[in-house]
């Protein structure tokens, strides 16, 4: 185990430190600037770009949670489970109980994701590496199967319509609702980013890194590793749940593909594209992913996956820590 750990490449060391320490004021300023830009963009953007950005932010939330897991040394190939569960929870609430308030649907979806995470996490937290990845994949595919087969409840492969939400009692027309959902996504992302940043320099943040480095030692510090892994897993699930509800509200529709393995694969793809460190990399990765996908889909509708593959190849070969991460390391680096 120790041998393996010493094989960590030397450049990984400053990375750990950059993500670990509380950020410098310059970093905070950059983040506030970005937030202001996102808020302003809500007005000016054309409809399709607004939609694309909302979806990217929703997926960025999921990837933020996935990256937390990756920092603990775990790759989940099944975040679609929580993404879909939360989206369907929102769709059910609208369909069955007529709840349309976005500020109710969001916590409801996150709670559904959390409940599923506790259930599946008790098993998943016992496994590592490829076994963890396959188990999470299996869980998500079980949900996919259920959603497909339970036609009377879920509408099968057609899915369910998600009505236009109300926001704090205000019932906007569909066009305004789109902008409101965008702002909801910006708000959720801002909250998530500030929490994740705080966590990075905290005891818990360091503990997850310690678990990736050496589980035996963590156990011998008197910390039950499984409980810590379960906590990160739960955190990732709640973020994925928030992303799922936002995506459902943005698209206005849910279908079983949200739980399909390619959706989960997309999240891993984005995590690798942006880089598994910092807080902005997952978001930048998600935006870039959605833009590339939109254009690939437009110009090569029958071969867009191939285009995505061609984009991914040089990144894996030449920028193993992702596109955004090296930039973030430079800008948000802490100096004391």
């Amino acid at each position, binding site marked *: 185990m120790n041998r393996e750990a010493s094989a960590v490449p030397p450049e990984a060391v400053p990375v750990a430190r950059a993500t670990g320490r509380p950020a410098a004021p310059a970093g905070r300023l950059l983040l506030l600037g970005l937030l202001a830009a996102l808020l302003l963009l809500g007005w000016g953007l054309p409809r399709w770009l607004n939609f694309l950005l909302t979806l990217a932010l929703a997926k960025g939330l999921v990837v933020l949670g996935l990256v937390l897991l990756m920092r603990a040394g775990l790759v989940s190939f099944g975040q679609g489970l929580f993404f879909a569960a939360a989206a369907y929870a929102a769709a059910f609430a609208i369909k069955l109980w007529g709840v349309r308030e976005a500020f109710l649907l969001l916590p409801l979806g996150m709670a559904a994701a959390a409940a599923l995470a506790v259930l599946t996490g008790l098993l998943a937290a016992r496994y590592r590496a490829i076994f963890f990845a396959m188990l999470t994949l299996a869980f998500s595919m079980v949900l996919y199967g259920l959603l497909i087969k339970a036609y009377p409840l879920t509408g099968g492969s057609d899915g369910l319509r998600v009505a236009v939400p109300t926001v704090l009692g205000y019932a906007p027309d569909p066009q305004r609702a789109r902008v409101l959902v965008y702002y909801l996504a910006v708000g959720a992302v801002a909250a998530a980013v500030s929490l994740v940043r705080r966590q990075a*320099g905290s*005891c818990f943040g360091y503990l997850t890194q310690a678990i990736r480095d050496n589980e035996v030692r963590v156990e011998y510090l*008197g910390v039950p590793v499984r409980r*810590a892994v379960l906590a990160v897993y739960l955190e990732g699930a709640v973020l994925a749940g928030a992303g799922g509800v936002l995506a459902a509200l943005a698209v206005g529709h849910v279908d079983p593909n949200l739980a399909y393995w390619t959706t989960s694969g997309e999240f891993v793809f984005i995590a690798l594209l942006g880089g598994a460190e910092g807080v902005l990399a997952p978001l930048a990765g998600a935006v870039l992913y959605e833009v590339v996908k939109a254009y690939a889909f437009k110009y090569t509708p029958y071969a867009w996956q191939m285009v995505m593959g061609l984009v991914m190849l040089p990144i894996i070969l030449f920028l193993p820590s992702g596109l955004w991460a090296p930039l973030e390391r430079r800008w948000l680096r802490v100096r004391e």
Partner: protein
Amino acid sequence: MSAGVRMTAPGSAPLLEVEDLTMRFGMVTAAEGETVTLSPGEFVGIVGPNGAGKTTFLNLVTGYLRPQRGRIRFQGRDITGMRPAEIVTLGIGRSFQIPQLFLSLTVLENVLVALAAAEGRTLRPGDPLHRPERARAGLEVLQRFALADDAERPASALPEGGRKLLDIAMAFALRPRLLLMDEPTSGVSAEEKFVVMDTLVPVLRAAGVTAVFVEHDLEVVRRYAGRVLVLDAGRIVADGPPDAVLAPRSEA
């Protein structure tokens, strides 16, 4: 921890009682009816040939392995079958033959994580690891182990002797009553051995820690242990002060 039973005044009651401890791996007997009692304040060296069961003894006492037979009591409390994390919180620390460090963290951060664990705060997402009081306590621990100059270096940059000390410092940061050390001087050059031990032993004595250390170098055992256990094929074949147990110096 509230359930811990202290039967009499500290100093007189045994700290660790091991009774009939037995563990076999297939045909290999790693522990066979080991029975031994440690009193607070003792410094015990464990010696024996390779495969005698020295590391197995530490693995059994700290819960890494579950014994097939026998009981282990710590401060009067039965800890047989508990998991390492639970046993550690009761007050048994352990260091490793191959140092088990967090190599992507700095030397200081390694100790800070240990301190946070001792406070039971590792699951708190809102508590900054580098909190000033904790950082000060961490530096103090590093100073005692002569590692303060390396505090900001990555743990992966430490030489072997430094890694050994950091490994022990992390266990020490938990304020254990009993510290089990697996070959604290292995992989360290002959001259460095005494440096490591001379750094270590006064710190442990000053903190009133009872220590058990596995050691191959009989000269080290003679100099630092007050009591020696000799293991062979999983049995305790000798137990007593070094002069009585170890061969005279000329034969060593």
